């Protein structure tokens, strides 16, 4: 039963308010941008995109719980599926398409070699519970990845299992709590700067800690005096991002580490911004006890529209006994795995997920490291910092920098330069969309009013940076010439205009449901 050519609700042709060049195509499409209904609004249950043989009819042995009735999935042929997802893809911005200056997210080029290598059957087609003799190459790769991360941090212990940055934070903070517990220390509070990522306080809370905020000083750094005032026997740890979320290096970090250690607490570093210092600074030399990496930031495993990531954690020696399982151990017959929190791992915090970690991400990150080498990684940090400072210097008269330079790998602006025109950071971001760019991170960090945090990364050609600078200057120029309304109603040219987020949250529609039959509609 085909549903025929009716147009699904909400895909009506563009209306007059759409304005300008795009007003009124007959079907609501715009050349390369084609309206695409949901999977569930197309197809026919009789169609399929696979050819599978009908199995021999034998009596099922399902204990009487065989599914009756239809599931409600649509049926589509392969060409329809390819077309559906190709059309959807064309509604996405991506690093492949242009500069993606999303601060704190390190949207750098994703080398395709890494994709190819992760798909070698010797990695991609390994079952996690194969006999260990058949996976020695995989364990060797994990061990080698760990070695690179140890050299780059100067820290002696690596926990590979965490699946993302926040998972790494959870791992690291649980390790800290386990170490305090083992030492008979009942510490209840964790210090987190105001400028921290939201995951930091959420993680501390998940480990049973109360969170106490530390203010920033006038220079966008942790207020060391305030920090010292809060240190005491009840503080378990401090969680600091360095370089911090204002894009600044914490100049007093060694002094902070000394004070934290003096109070018997551990120093957790959120390594989201490691890209700025890789190969130039080793976190161990700053006094850091625990740091997670985001392999999907610094080491370029693709973000994939929100994952998968990988969040390995580096630890100082004293915390090694508490690392999550599995552990890779060097045995008589090569590599082995300690998969449960027993024996030498009896004090481990335990398991954080099934199996051994994000192997697919490890292969990509390792290929990335080998491609760059020690020299290339150092160049990564230098070019990333250079690019951010170039943006900062080029835009300091156009926008309002939150702090003077130099910055590290990202530069932060507030909305002071926009306020005279009654234009918000959000408006400006949406106008950048019309200019063909993904906006900067906006309204983060929270310590700056109307924050715009721009992280260009090292993989942008100078010409692309210049194009972005010209766009920002052009928009500011438009404001000065009385064009604020154009920004306030932006974006105009994207697949959708500004979306009503309030409505989405007030009456949530979180899945497609079959249309009600006509008689029940009233």
């Amino acid at each position: 039963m085909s549903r025929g050519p009716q147009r699904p609700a909400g895909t009506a042709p563009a209306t007059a308010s759409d304005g300008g060049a795009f007003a009124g195509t007959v079907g609501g499409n715009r050349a390369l941008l084609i309206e695409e209904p949901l999977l569930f609004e197309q197809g026919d249950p009789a169609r399929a995109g696979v050819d599978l043989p009908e199995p021999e009819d034998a009596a099922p042995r399902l204990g009487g719980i065989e599914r009756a009735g239809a599931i409600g999935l649509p049926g589509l042929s392969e060409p329809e599926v390819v077309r559906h997802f190709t059309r959807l893809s064309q509604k996405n911005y991506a690093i492949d398409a242009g500069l993606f200056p999303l601060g704190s997210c390190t949207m750098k080029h994703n080398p395709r070699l890494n994709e190819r290598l992760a798909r070698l059957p010797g990695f991609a087609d390994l079952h996690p519970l194969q006999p260990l003799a058949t996976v020695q190459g995989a364990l060797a790769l994990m061990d080698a990845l760990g070695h690179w991360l140890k050299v780059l941090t100067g820290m002696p212990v690596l926990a590979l299992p965490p699946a993302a940055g926040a998972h790494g934070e959870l791992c690291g903070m649980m390790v800290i709590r386990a170490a305090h517990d083992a030492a008979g220390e009942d510490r209840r509070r964790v210090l987190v700067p105001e400028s921290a990522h939201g995951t930091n306080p959420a993680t501390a809370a998940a480990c049973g800690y109360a969170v106490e905020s530390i203010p920033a000083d006038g220079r966008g750094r942790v207020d060391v005096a305030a920090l010292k005032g809060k240190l005491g026997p009840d503080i378990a740890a401090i969680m600091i991002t360095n370089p911090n979320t204002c894009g600044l290096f914490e100049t007093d970090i060694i002094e902070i580490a000394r004070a934290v250690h003096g109070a018997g607490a551990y120093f957790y570093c959120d390594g989201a911004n490691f890209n700025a210092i890789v190969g130039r600074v080793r976190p161990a030399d700053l006094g850091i006890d625990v740091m997670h990496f985001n392999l999907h930031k610094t080491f370029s495993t693709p973000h994939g529209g929100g994952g998968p990531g990988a969040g390995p954690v580096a630890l100082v020696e004293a915390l090694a006994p508490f690392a999550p399982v599995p552990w890779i151990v060097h045995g008589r017959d090569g590599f082995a795995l300690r998969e449960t929190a027993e024996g030498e791992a009896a004090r481990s915090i335990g398991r954080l997920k099934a199996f051994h970690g994000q192997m697919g991400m490890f292969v990509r990150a390792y290929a990335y490291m080998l491609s760059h080498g020690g020299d290339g990684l150092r160049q990564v940090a230098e070019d990333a910092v250079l690019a951010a400072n170039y943006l900062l210097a080029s835009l300091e008269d156009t926008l309002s920098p939150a702090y003077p330079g130099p910055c590290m790998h990202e530069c932060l602006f507030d909305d002071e330069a926009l306020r005279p025109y009654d234009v918000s950071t959000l408006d400006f971001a949406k106008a950048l969309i019309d200019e063909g760019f993904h906006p900067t991170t906006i309204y983060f960090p929270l310590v700056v009013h109307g924050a715009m945090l721009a992280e260009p990364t090292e993989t942008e050609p100078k010409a692309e940076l210049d194009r972005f600078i010209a766009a920002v200057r052009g928009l500011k120029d438009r404001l000065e010439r009385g064009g604020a309304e154009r920004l306030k109603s932006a974006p105009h040219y994207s697949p959708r205009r500004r979306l009503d987020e309030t409505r989405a949250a007030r009456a949530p529609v979180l899945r497609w449901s079959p249309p009600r039959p006509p008689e029940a509609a009233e």
Partner: protein
Amino acid sequence: MRYLPLTGADRKAMLAAIGAASVDDLFADVPEAARLTEPLDLPPHAGEIEVSRALAALAARNVAAGEAASFLGAGAYRHHVPATVDHLIQRGEFLTSYTPYQPEISQGTLQYLFEFQTQVALITGMEIANASLYDGASACAEAALMARRATRRRKVVASGGLHPHWRDTVATLLRYADAELVAAPADPLGGEDLASRIDADTACVIVQNPGVFGHLRDLSALGRACAEKGALLVVCVAEVVSLGLCVPPGAMGADIVVAEGQGLGNGLNFGGPYLGLFATRERFVRQMPGRIAGQTVDADGRRGWVLTLSTREQHIRREKATSNICTNSGLCALAFTIHLALLGEAGFRRLARINHARACELADRLAAIKGVAVLNDAFFNEITVRLPAPAAPVVDRLAEDGVFAGVPAARLFPGEGALADHLILCATELNTADEIERLGTALEGALR
């Protein structure tokens, strides 16, 4: 360096624009004691040829499951992934996009997440689903935490048929959540009584179906027992393909369904990245962890999608968030969505029937071996057998002959001596009749 576009001249021009003499000036905020002056002890950069060679050499030291006759399951399942899936997920617009914070230029990601949520709700028989979590095990732990919050009760009861990795992940996440995990003993026969373990302080009962030993159960009575005592029923599905053939957990009284979605669209990858599915009842929506895509309209009244209900999440709620999760498994969710779109209603059900038929053949072949006992009456595509000898050495020996004979229960339950002779085997559409015969013959030889 092929990934770094800046030339020496570019760098010079940029430094001049900044007003810095050298790049070292830009690192002036780094304390002098921490500035690395010597190069680190790492090899220099390398080209595609050299890197490919190095990685291929490592890959060659492994035996891919496809090179063997593989009967490995126990939480990771080898299915055929159509070529279309891998082609589409490698489109740069998907692969190299970010979490859809700017919805106007992320409608592709948001629409497939909405489709993914709908598919997950449909196959689990639940009202709503989120946009994915890391994997099945961590989703299971999030379910326990959610039940703890929603019921304000402390005790979490876990079935002895729950995959030990999932059970251990729950234990880790509950450790500092003022909660108590009551894990039932390993249940190789699938006959445990969980209802009697529910009391007035039980937040939830976690049961895997089919269980780690392969047993498939009607959970309706357990669902009723939970409902009577105010506890939530959390149903775990490690093999998502089973939902094509079995009564969905939602129809058996599940309050939360978590599943490992790897079996659709995603390869084995030595255990990760995988895909956590999370579905529940509409009334728990504000307790649910993770990202959620929701429908809305744009300024022109056209339908579109956004991330929604973010007031549950860490970037808004900080220490009061329902979970600390941020990045999840977006691209794995896309692979799942595409694979299930290709299968459709008819293909998904047929795929499940093929899996079950192969497992029936496997069970019959193994039951014909002297001294081998098949422990399952009701199962999907996975069974447990008791051998007349410890399973691990047998498995290692068969691996040398290119047969991955299954997962020794001892690998998952190392402390349980009584399970040393238990072997967990799985058959999927990729196992041929020849492979099943090869396994049977090899096992007969090894046990002789």
